[in-house]
């Protein structure tokens, strides 16, 4: 085997650069808020006098349900990032060029490894083999999920991964997941450009704002299932934290329970809203030409986007309140109060944050900064107001949601939206 020539190394460097600038950049934009949240959560959990990472990995080694929950949570939460890394359409052109397949796969594996880093680091505290097993199993799970296994060898690799996850010894998991890593990543990469025609039920009907909202909902259900699952995870996490806070602080009585539940429901509900508002607002941007062509009033555009996000957040809120009520064995009136309060919080915070993110997501390089800022401001302001004002904060949020909806509605000529349309126009006119 001969050493690679300078020209071959240069070609490989170009592949690294191109895949980094396309798939890597898109994944960074999508995943940055998620990883920021994970870093924040890890700092709270493991920082200072907090928990030791080894405690978590020891518990996971001993308890199968905890280990599986941790693995599933990580796999589902980071699935959108893995999907972008492996299936970004702008990378497909590179496949037509004389680039060896192993170079593509190597760069994709490197990108995916960076995406799995927090999970690997957590497990690496339990030993190098545990870290390697976490790396291999997470990559295998993402590859196998994204390739939609159908060939016997893929189904066998998936089964083997399942068996490996049932084992407490990391060495066994590492051996069981390596075939899935190789087969799954390769199959996911190969199938990325395939367009399959799934069978769907038609959802869009009714008058303009309703039909528009249902279009966004259809987009969420069909193209962003992982994001909806992520919302479910945020809600579950919120329930557990609220229950622990109520139990460990010995909170009793209806009013203090309701206030603490509402306060601790706000961060996960805002995380849900932030997760869903991005794709909904992107869908609205894709439909801009049709909306303008048909003269759709700005109010209808605002209502359609906000209603979709707020409805899902409201459902998450209702589930949060009901679960907390169940966990603390609340009487029916308190259960209804908790559920109703959190549902209203979900509706109002979903509406407010969607409007805030409409201002933040303008399709330029500073989108992520502005989105971060909006979400952080919203989390701090909402949590503080809930802690200080209790359920009265709902009134404040209603006013804020209404004001933001009006002030940040799709603006007219001369605004940033028009400028963005003109930038797109310039790019289109320059295109061959």
């Amino acid at each position, binding site marked *: 085997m001969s050493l690679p020539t300078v020209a071959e190394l240069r070609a490989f460097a170009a592949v690294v650069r191109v895949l980094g600038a396309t798939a890597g950049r898109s994944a960074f934009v999508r995943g940055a808020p998620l990883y920021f949240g994970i870093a924040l959560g890890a700092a709270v959990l493991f920082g200072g006098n907090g928990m030791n990472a080894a405690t978590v990995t020891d518990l996971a080694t001993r308890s199968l349900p905890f280990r599986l929950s941790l693995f599933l949570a990580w796999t589902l939460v980071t699935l959108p990032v893995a999907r972008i890394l492996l299936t970004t359409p702008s990378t497909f052109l590179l496949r037509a060029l004389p680039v060896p397949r192993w170079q593509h796969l190597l760069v994709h594996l490197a990108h995916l490894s960076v995406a799995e880093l927090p999970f690997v680091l957590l497990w690496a505290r339990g030993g190098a083999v545990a870290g390697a097993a976490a790396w291999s199993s997470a990559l295998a799970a993402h590859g196998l999920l994204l390739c939609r296994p159908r060939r016997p060898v893929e189904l066998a690799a998936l089964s083997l991964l399942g068996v490996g996850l049932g084992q407490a010894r990391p060495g066994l998991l590492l051996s069981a997941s390596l075939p899935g890593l190789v087969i799954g990543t390769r199959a996911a990469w190969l199938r990325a450009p395939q*367009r399959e025609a799934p069978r769907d039920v038609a959802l*869009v009907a009714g008058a303009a704002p309703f*039909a528009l909202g249902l279009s966004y909902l259809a987009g969420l259900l069909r*193209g962003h299932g992982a994001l909806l699952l992520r919302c479910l995870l945020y809600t579950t996490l919120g329930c557990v934290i609220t229950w622990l806070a109520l139990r460990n602080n010995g909170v009793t009585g209806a009013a203090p329970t309701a206030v603490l539940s509402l306060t601790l429901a706000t961060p996960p509900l805002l995380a849900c809203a932030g997760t869903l508002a991005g794709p909904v607002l992107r869908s609205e941007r894709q439909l801009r*030409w049709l909306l303008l062509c048909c003269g759709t009033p700005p109010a209808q555009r605002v209502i359609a986007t906000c209603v979709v996000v707020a409805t899902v957040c409201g459902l998450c809120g209702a589930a949060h309140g009901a679960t907390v009520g169940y966990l603390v064995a609340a009487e029916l009136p308190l259960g209804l109060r908790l559920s109703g309060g959190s549902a209203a919080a979900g509706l109002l915070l979903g509406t407010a944050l969607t409007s805030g993110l409409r201002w933040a997501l303008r399709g330029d390089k500073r989108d992520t900064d502005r989105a971060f800022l909006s979400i952080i401001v919203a989390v701090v302001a909402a949590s503080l107001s809930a802690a200080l004002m209790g359920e009265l904060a709902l009134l404040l949020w209603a006013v804020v949601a209404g004001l933001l909806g009006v002030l940040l509605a799709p603006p007219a000529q001369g605004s940033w939206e028009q400028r963005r349309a*003109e930038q797109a*126009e310039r790019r*289109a*006119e320059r295109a061959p």
Partner: protein
Amino acid sequence: MLELCGISKRLGRRSVLDDVSLSCPPGEITAVVGENGAGKSTLLRIATGILEPDRGRVLVGGEELSAGGVTARRQLGYVPDSSEPLPDLMVCELFALTAALKRLPRPGEDWPWIERLGVRPIWRQRLSTLSFGERKRALVLCAQLGEPAVLVLDEPSNGLDPGGATLMAEILRERARAGRATLLASNDAPFLAALASSAFRLGGGRLERCTD
């Protein structure tokens, strides 16, 4: 009828349209030709109200289009060249959405245009799974909703198979016979030669009538 009066538009530092006026009378097919990047698509997007001009007015049936004129927009249909509206929507859902946005009653699945445009086999398919030509057929179907008085098409023959291009030409001729106005941008010379009542060349921001 569609009228563009003294339209000027700068994109960044480049003047794309400079005092352009154009009239698309009823019963005629007006074509705009020009090199890549000449500003044809920009002109069409201004004509449909997607982009606001820096100066000038757009009138559809005598109604002002700028500043969100809904009455004017109800008389318009637009077929973009490359837009992919919500890739996760099915064709029937895009159809229902367009009907709702145009505030029109949604025709049933036996609407003759569905069969005629060959959309029936892809009726329940997601837009992301369609070919470029199939997507174009779906967009033409949506633009035909309400049989608009003015139809604006960007590169209508682009991506269509020979049968599709012939069908498109036939549809546009029928519209002209029915006294409806059509504005299209294309560089497909044989297609335009067989169709256009009048043609204009766009270059350097100016619009000139083609004599050849």
